[in-house]
């Protein structure tokens, strides 16, 4: 035996601390320059300019104009989460019961939008929702309305387009939860006399809940900070927090206030992320008990 392999092979972890650090070093440098330093500087800007102050935060959470934007952001994010859940569950259920070509086609119908540029999808919705766009043409053709409706720059339009963009993030976790339920479970339930509806209510739906939870949290988190779709579909009329941050930076050049808005957004997101982690653990706890 040469060169004492035991030192390299300790419990399957065969890089030394120095080698591990060397492997991680490029990431750590990049994470510092492109993640820690920028966020740190922005938050510093919001807290210490010119002297230590919470004034910018106070302004963000007390002035009615900004409060309205925050409430709208929460309302839209919640609506999008509910709508995507209602649309995603049936599709995930069908995917979990399919195989072969049918499954491939269903998966493709989720992955294609997921990997298509957000701008392309947002642009498509603008074209559809325009004053003389396809949807208005259809509505007038069917005699539902006599003149084109103003669809763009409404909260409904923002919710619809954002739900379309975020739907794959809801479908995929629910699909993987449903996929993990062995067929035997529903067969066993039915052998014990449960009706189809009871099997669904007592077995399938509860077992899909971990997927539902992570899908909802993913969509809600992404919706809170969404920029492109609300900026283009909602316009200044339906301003959400991301659009407000952009306006403060690009038009008002008020970095401190933009930093405070980002601070509030980050606090929300981190709180949810921490709760999310707990929710998952709690779930596992209940599952093993």
């Amino acid at each position, binding site marked *: 035996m040469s060169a004492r392999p035991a030192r390299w092979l300790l419990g399957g972890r065969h890089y030394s*601390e120095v080698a*591990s650090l060397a492997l991680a070093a490029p*990431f750590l440098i*990049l994470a510092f320059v492109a993640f820690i330093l920028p966020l740190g500087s922005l938050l510093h800007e919001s807290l210490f300019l010119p002297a230590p102050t919470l004034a910018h935060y106070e302004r963000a959470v007390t002035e009615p104009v900004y409060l309205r934007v925050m409430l709208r952001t929460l309302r839209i994010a919640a609506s999008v989460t509910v709508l995507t859940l209602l649309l995603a569950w049936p599709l995930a259920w069908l995917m979990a019961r399919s195989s072969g070509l049918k499954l491939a086609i269903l998966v493709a119908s989720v992955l294609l939008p997921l990997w298509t540029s957000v701008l392309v999808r947002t642009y498509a919705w603008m074209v559809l929702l325009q004053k003389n766009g396809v949807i208005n043409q259809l509505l007038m053709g069917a005699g539902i309305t006599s003149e084109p409706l103003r669809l763009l720059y409404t909260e409904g339009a923002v919710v619809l387009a954002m739900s379309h963009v975020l739907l794959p993030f809801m479908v995929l976790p629910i699909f993987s939860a449903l996929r993990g339920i062995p067929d035997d479970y529903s067969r066993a339930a039915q052998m014990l006399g449960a009706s189809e509806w009871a099997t669904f209510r007592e077995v399938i739906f509860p077992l899909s809940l971990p997927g539902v939870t992570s899908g909802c949290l993913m969509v809600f988190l992404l919706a809170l900070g969404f920029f492109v779709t609300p900026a*283009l579909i909602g316009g200044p009329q339906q301003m959400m927090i991301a659009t407000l941050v952009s306006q403060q930076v690009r038009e008002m050049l008020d970095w401190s206030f933009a930093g405070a808005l980002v601070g509030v957004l980050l606090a929300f997101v981190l709180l949810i992320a921490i709760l999310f982690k707990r929710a998952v653990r709690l779930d596992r706890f209940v599952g093993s008990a």
Partner: protein
Amino acid sequence: MSAQHRQGSSRHAGRAAIGAVAYAVTVFLLLPTLVIMPMSVGPERYLRFPPNGFSLRWYAEYFGDADWINATLFSLEIGVVTTIAATVVGTMLALALVRGRLPGKGLVELLVIGPVIVPHIALAVAMFLVFEQLRLTGTLLGFAMAHTILALPFVVFTVLAALYRFDADLERAALSCGAGPLRTFRHVTLPLIAPGVVSAALFAFIISFDEAVVSFFISNLDRKTLPRKMFEDIDYNVSPTLAAVATMLTLLTIVALVGSHLIKSRLDRRTRTATD
């Protein structure tokens, strides 16, 4: 018997209803982008559906416009650099996380998922602030760093999954037979995780090529990416050229998805025969 029959038909009705909703949802998912395609070949300045004629005028407009072409080339350039950087840096980190003894491992893992949890608008504005001072806005280096940090979580998770899937004893065997760590990586580890690394690289490219929020802020007047150029055009004039660009991007996504599926299944098969 009649009760049983009733139960059977209601079961059918329930399933059929969920199935019908599910198919309607796939149509909802696909239709908006597919509607754009026929509209992009309409001859008129005004987008209409169905188009009243066939013309490649808007495609010609795109290829004849230096602004569009420069933005596209810049995005491709950034995409290639990001793909290489994210794949190399991410694979190294994944190795350190799985096979190494990394001090502060929990903290490093938190840093990796950071860019997924932190909203892109927050990162975008923060990077704009710092990159402006470092004179990195509008530069290849600035974009590549920004996109690499955004793509890394996906690369690291994909490579980690690939590393966990194969038997670490194979590496141990190579090491105890006298191969150094580098040779072991080159001849044992890398071939086994290759399918994961290839899909990670593809993820990285698509993430970079489509990234709109950070690019919106760290572009400048003379150097902008394709999504930033699209953003400006959508905001100021909804011209049919955009429909042509959107159609080409959708087709490119289809090609990339099918391509990655083919490459992956091929590599998977090779890996399986190698380890059998």
